[in-house]
Every structure is written in C-alpha cells, then in structure tokens.
C-alpha cells in the first residue's frame, strides 16, 4: 500500500467571487519509507498539499488517501493524524505548553496513551531529536533550532509513520537547519519514516530520494534529484534555482573545466575537482 495518494484532487479556498482554485486535477503518489522534497515558488500550493494529507483541509473533488484511508471520512481523521505527523514553519505557533516535556506530552495525551507509556514516548522523542537536556526547560528560552527540534519531538511522540515538514527549517540559521535535517534523516534511514520535506532550500532538497516540483497547483517535475535538476529550463520556469554547488559547476564548465553533468552537492563538486587536480 502507498503511504499517500492524491487522486485527481482539486482544491479551492473560499467561495463565490473570492473563490481561488489552488490545486487542479492534482495526482501524486508517495511511497512508504521514501524521503520526498516538495519544491515550488511561493503560492504554488505546497502548504495546501500538506494540509490535505492530514485532513486539515478536505479536497473539493478527488480523493486523498493515507495508508488507504480517505481523508474525507471524518472517522478516519484521528487515525490519519496519528500516522501522519506535521511540523509547521514557525515554532512559536505550534507550542502548547510552557515546559518542553509537557509540550511533547500533548499529542500522546490527546490519543489517550496511559501515563507510563507517555513517559516512554517522551524519552524516545527527546532522545531521537537530541533534546533530552532541555526536558524541564521552558520552550521560550530555547533557540530557534532547539525549539523546532522540540516541535519535531512533539510530532514524533505520536509515533507517526509519515512526517510532513512544512518549511520547518526556513526560520533557522544554517546550524539550526543542519541540526533539524540530521534528525529527520535519521528518522527516515533508521526508523523507516516516510518524510515529506517542503522547502525553499535547494541544498536541502538534493538530499532527498525524490523531488517533486509544483507550480500553479500541478506537479511539473518529479524524479531523483539528478533527473529533476538536469531539467534546467523547467527549474527556471518554475521560479526555482539550481543548488549552489550545481551553479558553481555550471560556471566552471562554461569557463572550460571538463566537469561531468549531475554535480549537485558540495561533496560531489569537491570530489570531481580533486580528481581533475590529480590528473594535471
């Protein structure tokens, strides 16, 4: 069974004159255990997509299913939200309690987990996100990256199989971003969690197994980072850029260096450059 399936989904905000169609006949399948980056310019419909997955929004037509459960059926919502956790952009707007452990406990409390197991889940969520040392701290006193890791811990405490990150790293500095991405990658590789990472950072997207690009409410490209970033015109047309290392490689190539295609990461670029140096 697929983790998430959008089948011919249309969605509009508002009605009457203010009606705004955001998704049009949108179809997308996300495999269990995959790490998908969802890219697209501002207003392309990424957040709408994310909110359709856990039933915060319901499609106007078409169906969204999570592990085969239709989000339209209200009786499924509890189970869907349990299995698809979501972390939002601003850590300040998703915190419920003042103290870290109380905040992490909020999800398990909601689904009626017994007290002893809540404690185990808090232990687990804090250790996976590396936030044990803040357990009894006030969330307000943490840094942005730490807060966002606590928010991830809050989502993970529900033991979801899918984790949706809606620009969860966008308010963080490079260090905070790295902290959060490391946590997410571990969850994907070691716990087999399906991850959907909505982001504007191309360098973050390159690390995904699969990239989907949205524009104007439809998927315009889908594939491995190499496949997607090879389509340079399309990338530009969708209002996006290549990863920094790819841009540098392009520049070097046009300056005459014999670099191969498909360099996307810092590591790949430095490897290839070293190879060239050794040949000289």
């Amino acid at each position, binding site marked *: 069974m697929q983790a998430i399936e959008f089948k011919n989904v249309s969605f509009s905000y508002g009605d009457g004159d203010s009606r705004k169609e955001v998704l049009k006949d949108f179809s997308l399948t996300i495999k269990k255990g995959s790490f998908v980056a969802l890219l697209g310019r501002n207003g392309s419909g990424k957040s709408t997509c994310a909110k359709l997955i856990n039933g915060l929004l319901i499609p106007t037509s078409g169906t969204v299913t999570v592990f085969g459960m239709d989000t339209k059926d209200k009786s499924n919502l509890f189970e869907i939200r349990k299995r698809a956790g979501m972390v939002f952009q601003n850590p*300040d*707007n998703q915190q419920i309690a003042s*103290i870290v452990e109380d905040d992490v406990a909020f999800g398990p409390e909601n689904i009626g*987990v017994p007290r002893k197991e809540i404690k185990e889940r808090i232990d687990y969520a804090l250790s996976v996100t590396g936030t044990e040392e803040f357990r009894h701290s006030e969330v307000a006193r943490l840094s942005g990256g730490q807060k966002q890791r606590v928010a991830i811990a809050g989502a993970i405490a529900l033991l979801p199989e899918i984790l949706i990150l809606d620009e969860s790293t966008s308010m963080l500095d490079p260090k905070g971003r790295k902290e959060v991405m490391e946590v997410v990658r571990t969850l994907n590789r070691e716990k087999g969690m399906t991850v959907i990472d909505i982001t504007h950072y191309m360098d973050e997207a390159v690390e995904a197994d699969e990239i989907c690009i949205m524009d104007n409410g439809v998927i315009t490209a889908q594939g491995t980072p190499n496949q997607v970033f090879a389509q340079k015109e399309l990338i530009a047309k969708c209002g996006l850029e290549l990863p920094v290392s790819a841009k540098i490689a392009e520049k070097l190539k046009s300056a005459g260096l014999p670099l191969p295609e498909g360099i996307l990461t810092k590591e790949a670029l430095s490897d290839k450059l070293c190879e060239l140096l050794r040949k000289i």
Partner: protein
Amino acid sequence: MLSEVTFGQYYPSKSFVHRLDPRVKILLLIAYIVMIFTAQNFLGLIASLLFLSLTIIFSGVPIGSVLKSIKAILFLVIFTAILNILFYSPKQGDTHLFWVVYVEGLISAGFLALRLISLVMGSSILTLTTTPVSLTDGIESLLSPLKLVKFPVHDLALIMSIALRSIPTLANETERIINAQKARGADFDSGNIIKKAKALVPVLIPLLISAFRRGDELGDAMDARCYSGSKVRTKYKKLTLSVRDLIAFLVTVVAFAGVILLNIYELNVLAYFAKIWG
C-alpha cells in the same frame, strides 16, 4: 528586556516550600487568609505573622522580595488606615487625643493595616515559590470535582496553559512592533497620559491581528497533534502528595489552633505576661 518578563515573580529554588504540592500550597494560603481574619487581637495576628515568618524562612526567598509585594499596596494600606482613624466612632471610655483622633482609632487602624500587609505577604509567598505552570496544574486538580457538574475544567486549564505559554511570545512581538513603529517615527515617551495611551493604539492593533493569526496556526497545530477535546484524553503530569505536604498541613493546623486559642484566652495570656514582667 521585555522578553525577560515572565508572568508572576517566581523565585527559583528547591526549598521545602518550593517543593510542596501546588494544591496544598493553594489550600494552605486560603487557610492562612481565614486565619488572619479569625484573629481578633494583636496577639493572634502576631501568631499568624510568626507562622508567615516560618514559611518565609523555609522558602529560602529573600525577605526583600517578599517585602517588595507590599510596595504595590502601600497606598491602599495607608489610605484605609487614614479613613479608619478619621471615621472612628468613639465608644464610652475611649481616650481622645485631638480633633477626631482617638487612641482606640489608631489601634484599630494599625490592626487593619497589619492584617492587609500579612495578607499580601502570604499571597506573594505562593507566587514566589510556585511556577505559573504548576499553579495551573494545582488549580486544575482542585477544580476537577466540578467535572461532575459538566464544568469544562480541562478546557479551562488548557486555555490557562496556552495563555501562560503565549506571554513570552506576545511580549517579544510587542517589543518588535514598538520598535517598528518607532522606526516609522512614532513617539511613545512624550505628552500626557492620554497622548501616551493614544500612541499605543498603533501597537495594539497589529498585536491583536497577529495574535489571531498565531491562534489560527496554533489551532491547526493542535488538530495535527490529534487534539479532539477531553473525551479520550489522559494526563501525563500527576501531582502526588508527600510527607512534606503533611508536615506543612500539620504546622498550619497548629498555627490556626493557636490563633483561635489566643482569641479566647487573650486576657489570661496578657495577665500571665504581666505577672512575669512584674
């Protein structure tokens, strides 16, 4: 600086009083207040002040912090005391000093002032030794019998808890908006009170709008974490009573009994002291 403002005036420590169960502390504060109003004479009041001093000593809170709480009500205390002196209705045998002032009037005013001061000092011990979070937990637990009459105790506690946790966020936001308005030439510091109040309007409106936006997102975040009211909800935090709480309870009972005895045997006690001092 604004962001440093946390609600209340909690003084962090691990003292005996700090570690008491918040429910016990709330109940004992109520008992203390009743005790002050039960005391009919200075001896009783002094006994309750002794009890208060004992609490302060075992709370490890510097006396200065406790006294600071009086500052806020000093005006009220002086004002009521003066009214008491001016409007004292003399009884037969009272000692007249001058104008409308009687010795007995002075004494009753002093008694009232002392009562008010001990009241405020006692309450401030509670907020100095209990974090707002555990205070909320305590209130929720104490109110929980009201669930039987369908009173939404859980929702109330959640609202309080979200309100508490929003204070630093909104304080930060206020500071940001004030700075933004200052950068646009707003003037918050000059003019009379009315002018200053008016200057705050362009701060409050963006603050309100942003609070609504945050509330909206928070609602989504709560839904995403399976919030569905109190139907199946369990609670992680559990308040447990310990020996410590029992000790505090017993000490309070003794103090209360002392105050009542002093009410009844005031004259005997005075006579006893008179005999000792010859």
